[in-house]
């Protein structure tokens, strides 16, 4: 619709004014503060309502200050030349509106027939070009522009565009190019990490193979090592054994230095024989020594020699033996007789106690005198009690004891009794006294009784006889004794006296001894003769043996048996050494050769030590390898453990699923948005691209062909200069920017003019164009106004403009 008349009742400084507008374009001229902007605001206010009294809008209210009616009318003419009047006066909610179509008042909702459904904001955004809206050029983006143009293009398109916008935002919540925190991006990053982690996983098969190879290698090493160890162990054992044998070896070696050669070894036979011979010889010789001839012992010899020397005398003596025996017998008899007589005497004395040696035989007279014999018998008999006691004791002993003691005791008893009795008798005898007669005293009978004396006379007589006989006997005895003494002296001279007093016995003894000695001697001599025979035999034997022995000795160039012995013992010693060597060799065996490789025990020890070290090292290696094998096996077991890997695989699978789901969601959002746009594009007959094309044309026109194209590149405008160089909107000069803005705006409005046919309101207060640019813009306005009415308020008039298209506000106000 074309705005054909503006009638103001009261609005700002304007009251009760009206202007008719050209249908193509209308230039409104006036200096600053004349009310140009107020006029433009009036048009908007009538169409879309008065500004409210609240906030910043109140400055847009333009309530008249002179108290006239607030509001006014706009008159439009539609395509069918029908006049529409929109009247708005003071009222609630932007004022009271009255609309007339032709002469008919119509419902105020039909205002959309004029506004095309535009809101005030829409209108201001698209149709009003002033110093405020110019700034939006810098914020202008495709989406906004598209939304605006789409919004005009299709019913509900704005909602759709909002939906698309929301989808776009929703997509950006999932993913945004160059975004960082959106879930899809997080998933992608997570995926990279998981895949990287997976790549860090050792390839299981490779690891298994590697592990198997390692195991094989380790097993082989172990086997080799074990082999070596075995060898070394053997060596060690050998060396250790050698080491133990070293001392033996040393002694062996020393021994083996000794000369053990036997030039002429004594044969066993010879040796045995020589020994036997020697032994026999020794025995023989010994026997020879032992069998020295028997001899009489010195005593016997002397005895015999003496005899030989005095043979005649001694034989004489022997011949006189019976004579001597007779003499001896005679002597014995004499002594016997003497003894018997003594016994008789003693017996006489014993039976006549009073008898005394001094008593002499009384003469006859004297005997007479003694007729009256007076006898005083002093019969004091004293028993010898000790003897009797002893005898009693002996009796007791004889009774109770036995053997010799008994006999002894018996004898003592008898003797004791006899003695006691005898003593008693004597005592009785001796006690007779004849103290009467003097002669008696003289004759020794003092104290004796006459009877006794008388009695004694016989005794004395007997005694005298006896004594006489005794004397004879004694004389005889003396002669005999003398003879015997003579013999005795002879015997003594020849030393024949011995212990026995019996001289004849002495002779007998002597000759008996002699005879014994002679017998002995004879035996001896016989023996000696035999011995001598034997000795001779032995000597012969010795000689034989000696010859044999000498032969043997000669065989070994030995002089004596001792030499042979020495030789033998030497040889024996050597043989011992040889035996020892053999033994040692047997013990040492092959080790000898091995041992002799070592110059010293130290070398052997060193070698052993080194082997020992090697052994330890190998043992250690073996242990290490064993452990290694164990560890490889464990590791290989672990390779089978897929838990972590499987979890990773699960995580990756999950992650990829999530990624795809998010991608699908994102893509669906994106495509939905795109689809909506595309659909709207179609529905709006591609206004947007057409508009862009038109804008480019306008821009080229305004810039005198300096810029040939406008395009959007990621939400910012890019301008192509004639020389194809592209510029960003921010790189343009202020004037060019305004030119661009005007181009886009005009193109937009023209593009939707079939839907929204409202005048374009341009307030060039912001424009500081030079003349050329001003001309260009008027040229464009003229072109554009063919399709859409333009109302242009300016303080700069172009003289080329036709006057009928100019309203000079100065004139009006001057009215």
């Amino acid at each position, binding site marked *: 619709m074309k705005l054909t008349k503006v009638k103001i009742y009261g609005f700002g400084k304007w009251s009760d004014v009206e202007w008719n507008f050209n249908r193509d374009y209308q230039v409104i001229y006036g200096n600053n503060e004349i009310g140009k902007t107020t006029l433009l605001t009036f048009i908007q206010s009538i169409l879309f309502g008065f500004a409210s009294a609240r906030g910043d809008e109140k400055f847009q209210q333009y309530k008249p200050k002179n108290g006239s009616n607030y509001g006014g009318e706009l008159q439009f003419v539609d395509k069918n030349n029908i006049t529409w009047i929109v009247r708005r006066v003071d009222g609630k909610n932007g004022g009271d509106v009255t609309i007339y179509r032709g002469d008919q008042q119509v419902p105020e909702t039909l205002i959309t027939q004029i506004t095309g459904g535009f809101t005030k904001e829409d209108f201001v955004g698209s149709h009003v070009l002033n110093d405020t809206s110019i700034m939006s050029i810098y914020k202008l983006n495709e989406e906004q522009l598209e939304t605006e143009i789409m919004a005009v293009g*299709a*019913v*509900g*398109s704005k*909602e*759709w565009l*909002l*939906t698309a916008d*929301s*989808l776009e935002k*929703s997509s950006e919540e999932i*993913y945004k*190019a160059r975004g960082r925190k959106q879930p*899809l991006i997080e998933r*992608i990053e997570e*995926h990279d990490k998981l895949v990287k982690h*997976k790549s860090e*996983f050792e*390839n*299981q*098969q*490779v690891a*298994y*193979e590697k592990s*198997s190879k390692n195991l094989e290698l380790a097993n082989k090493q172990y086997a080799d090592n074990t082999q070596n160890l075995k060898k070394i162990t053997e060596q060690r054992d050998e060396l250790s054994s050698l080491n133990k044998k070293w001392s033996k070896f040393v002694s062996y070696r020393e021994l083996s230095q000794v000369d053990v050669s036997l030039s002429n070894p004594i044969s066993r036979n010879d040796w045995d024989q020589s020994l036997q011979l020697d032994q026999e010889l020794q025995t023989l010789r010994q026997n020879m020594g032992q069998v020295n001839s028997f001899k009489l012992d010195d005593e016997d010899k002397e005895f015999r020699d003496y005899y030989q020397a005095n043979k005649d005398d001694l034989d004489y003596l022997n011949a006189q033996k019976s004579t001597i025996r007779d003499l001896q017998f005679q002597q014995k008899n004499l002594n016997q007789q003497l003894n018997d007589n003594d016994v008789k005497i003693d017996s006489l004395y014993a039976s006549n106690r009073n008898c005394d040696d001094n008593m002499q035989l009384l003469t006859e007279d004297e005997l007479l005198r003694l007729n009256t014999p007076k006898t005083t018998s002093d019969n004091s008999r004293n028993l010898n009690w000790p003897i009797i006691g002893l005898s009693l004791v002996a009796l007791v002993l004889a009774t109770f004891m036995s053997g010799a003691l008994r006999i002894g005791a018996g004898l003592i008893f008898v003797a004791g009794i006899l003695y006691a009795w005898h003593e008693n008798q004597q005592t009785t005898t001796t006690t007779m006294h004849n103290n009467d007669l003097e002669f008696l005293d003289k004759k020794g009978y003092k104290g004796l009784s006459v009877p006794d004396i008388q009695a004694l006379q016989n005794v004395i007589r007997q005694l005298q006889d006896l004594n006489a006989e005794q004397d004879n006997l004694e004389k005889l005895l003396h002669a005999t004794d003398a003879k015997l003494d003579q013999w005795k002296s002879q015997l003594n001279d020849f030393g024949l006296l011995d212990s026995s007093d019996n001289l004849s016995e002495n002779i007998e003894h002597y000759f008996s001894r002699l005879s014994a000695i002679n017998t002995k001697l004879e035996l001896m001599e016989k023996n000696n003769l035999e011995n001598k025979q034997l000795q001779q035999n032995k000597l012969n034997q010795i000689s034989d043996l000696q010859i044999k022995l000498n032969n043997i000795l000669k065989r070994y160039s030995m002089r004596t048996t001792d030499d042979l012995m020495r030789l033998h013992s030497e040889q024996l010693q050597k043989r011992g050494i040889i035996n020892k060597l053999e033994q040692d060799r047997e013990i040492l065996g092959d080790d000898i050769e091995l041992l002799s490789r070592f110059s010293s025990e130290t070398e052997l020890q060193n070698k052993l030590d080194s082997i020992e070290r090697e052994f330890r090292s190998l043992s250690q290696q073996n242990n290490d390898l064993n452990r290694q094998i164990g560890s490889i096996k464990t590791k290989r077991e672990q*390779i*089978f453990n*897929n838990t972590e*890997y*499987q979890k990773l*695989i*699960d995580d*990756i*699978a*999950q992650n*990829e*699923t999530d*990624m*795809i789901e998010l*991608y*699908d*969601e*994102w*893509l*669906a*959002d*994106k*495509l*939905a948005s*795109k*689809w*909506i746009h*595309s*659909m*709207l*594009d*179609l*529905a709006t007959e591609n206004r947007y691209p057409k508009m862009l094309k038109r804008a480019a044309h306008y821009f080229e026109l305004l810039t005198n062909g300096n810029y040939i194209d406008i395009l959007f590149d990621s939400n910012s405008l890019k301008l192509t200069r004639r020389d194809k160089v592209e510029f960003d909107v921010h790189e343009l000069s202020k004037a060019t920017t305004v030119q661009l803005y005007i181009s886009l705006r005009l193109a937009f409005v023209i593009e939707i003019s079939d839907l929204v046919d409202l005048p374009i309101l341009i307030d060039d207060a912001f424009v500081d164009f030079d003349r050329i640019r001003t001309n260009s813009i008027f040229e464009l306005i003229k072109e554009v106004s063919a399709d859409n009415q333009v109302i242009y308020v300016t303080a700069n008039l172009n003289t080329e403009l036709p006057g009928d298209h100019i309203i000079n506000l100065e004139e009006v106000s001057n009215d």
Partner: protein
Amino acid sequence: MKFIHAADLHLDTPFVSISNFSNSLQEELKKSTYTAADKVFETAVTEEVDFVILAGDTYDNTERTLSAQIYLQGQFERLREHGIKVYLVYGNHDYYRNDFSVIKMPDNVTIFGDEVTTSEMTASDGQHVGITGFSYYQNHISDDMVANYSARGNYDYQIGILHAGIGDGNYAPFTVNELLTKGYDYWALGHIHKREILHKNPMIIYAGDTQGRNQNELGTKGFYLVNVENGMTNTKFVPSSIFVWKSTGITADESDTIDSLFDKITDVLAKYDETEVKYLITLTINGAQHLGENVIRSIERNELLNHFSVTDSHTILYKIYTKFDRNPQLIGIDQKYWDESSKDIFDLNDVKDMDNRLFGEEVIRQHIDNPKFIEHIKELTKNTINKKYIGD
């Protein structure tokens, strides 16, 4: 003669989005590829087959397979004890690389090399069998490998093992006709996880994988037990998956609350309670636009899902999707504009060019390269628009 044709065991496949499940369930899931493999080898023994064919991708990857190798070694050894041979090729997942396969397999196992070769064997019924195949030695093979397969040899029965995508240039491309020209009796295919009989007489079969590995691998998985008798080849599918992925849905209306949705879902899950297997349900709530904003937010916060994850139900609710349908009255803009503009919007190259950084991600690139990607993303975008629009 009997044999087993199995493929894509994918041992050690990771399972995603299961962290809310109980530990034992997680473990069961992680072990499920092995459980399925157990079933394969167990069947081989009980059915007294002559041999087992593993047509590639036995391992999910070749990077860390020792435990899988040890497992297979044990199983193969068991098969050996039963006089059962194994014919194995490596696929694109477990393509042969240096250092891979360090565990020595028993001598009943034939592993094909990178050149096409034919292995011979005599089955228990005396049939002379030729088995032809090759292994992947790289991730992708664009050559026409089938061309290298020799023409039918002098065998009673000849089998071709082929790990390939039908018409898929990355994975030894082939056509059914090309296979037919070889004159083989049986083609044991691997690579495609959805089992399919491409041709009968002769048989050309994708055994599919033995255990569904994600929500896209729907349905019961298993392998084929093949019986050749009197020149007739009879195949029998043997299920081996102990977890079966299933996609199902409920429809929401304005009156629905979280509680009522819970009841609806419970009813749906109850239908899948089975003793043999466990179902993993991906559930779509259709008509989500009817739901109140709070209900939708609650669903988006996984409140429903978490509610089920703590419930000790036999059937497992894996994921919940909301499907928002377009309400033409609300849209207000002619459908033709949408349709017309969609051609430009869902352009694969434009999508690839949208963000270099994202396209630089291998994972995303592969995702984009999925043939169904555009279709998938278009559905998603529509859902997004529908949801967004009603949300405002």
